[in-house]
């Protein structure tokens, strides 16, 4: 009987260790990677990803690419990401801190290279229940993305056909802005 108890305890420990490892260790590795690439700028600032970080985070993307990113943190309020990209293929992908894709769009889906994405923390169940229920008008422009995780990484990628295009594409992308939203969500 005592042995059965310990076998069951070992089984539950194994299940907990399995689930904990799958859910926590990859997330810790991602958060470490995000902290490393954004160490110089900090959260809610747009920065260009150097070539070696591009290769590390997106190894199957071509080396002739420009990538910019923003390590966002919406715990203190909404964050807005604005870009004005030149014509050509590009993608915007917003990952949360668990590696899930929150939002993604490309040039064809967007229809414009000039856009703003407003990132905000998703309201909790209690906050939703407390809400008045009236449709309050919003003065936000652009797309709105709500996330249950308060941190993550937004990445804009644009490939270049030849090396001569890289400086101009890099210059355009570097004009992008990521900042705490001045407007309430």
């Amino acid at each position: 009987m005592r042995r059965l108890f310990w076998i069951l305890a070992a089984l539950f420990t194994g299940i907990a260790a399995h689930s904990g490892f799958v859910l926590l260790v990859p997330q810790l590795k991602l958060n470490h990677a995000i902290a490393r690439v954004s160490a110089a700028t900090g959260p809610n600032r747009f920065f260009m990803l150097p070539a070696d970080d591009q290769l590390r985070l997106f190894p199957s993307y071509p080396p002739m690419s420009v990538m910019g990113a923003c390590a966002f943190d919406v715990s203190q309020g909404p964050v807005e990401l604005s870009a004005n990209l030149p014509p050509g293929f590009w993608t915007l992908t917003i990952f949360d801190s668990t590696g899930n894709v929150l939002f993604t769009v490309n040039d064809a889906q967007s229809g414009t290279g000039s856009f703003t994405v407003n990132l905000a923390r998703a309201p909790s169940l209690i906050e939703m229940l407390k809400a008045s229920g009236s449709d309050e008008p919003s003065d936000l422009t652009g797309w709105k993305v709500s996330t249950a995780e308060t941190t993550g990484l937004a990445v804009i990628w644009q490939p270049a056909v030849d090396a001569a295009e890289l400086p101009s594409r890099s210059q355009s992308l570097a004009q992008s802005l990521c900042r705490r939203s001045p407007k309430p969500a």
Partner: protein
Amino acid sequence: MRRVVSGSLYLAVGALAGVGSAVGAIEIYGAVPVAPESPWMSFEVSPNSPVQPYAVAHFLMAGRLPPALGQMREFTSQRSSDGGVLSSACDYELVAAPAPAQWWSLSASGGGKSEPDTVITADMAIAENDGSVRVVVSRNANPGNWIRPPAGEAFTLTYMVAEASTSQAGGVLPAFAIARSRC
């Protein structure tokens, strides 16, 4: 005292088995063959997939981010179309007929690192007269489209293709057959 030691041993074995099975599951469960006879595997990062946590963990554990669902799909292969393990001691010919309609990239990685030495993309590739695309994977320089696999024995081919639209998610299959040409 003996009971405590014995009990702790049970728990330690359980915890080790849990972590070991998690590491194995991240490598095995996330990858799904795209077709019964195809050497290409796909990682199901769709939230609807029951193996999604393992598939996402597969990418994160390698220190990289998963492909954006609806924008890009990524396939990997460690075998040629005849079932042999891809080895840098051999040359391989990858043929897509017709050429993929969407933007794509092909790379070879291995030797304990996920970063490839060379990447060839739809922008760089030269198509054949019949509209197909032929890519040679060899340690030795080759004319035309050529990928150099990393030194060492086994390597992995990674094929990434843009999805035309979100409605086609899951519908894009790898166009390249992998034929071993010389060993």
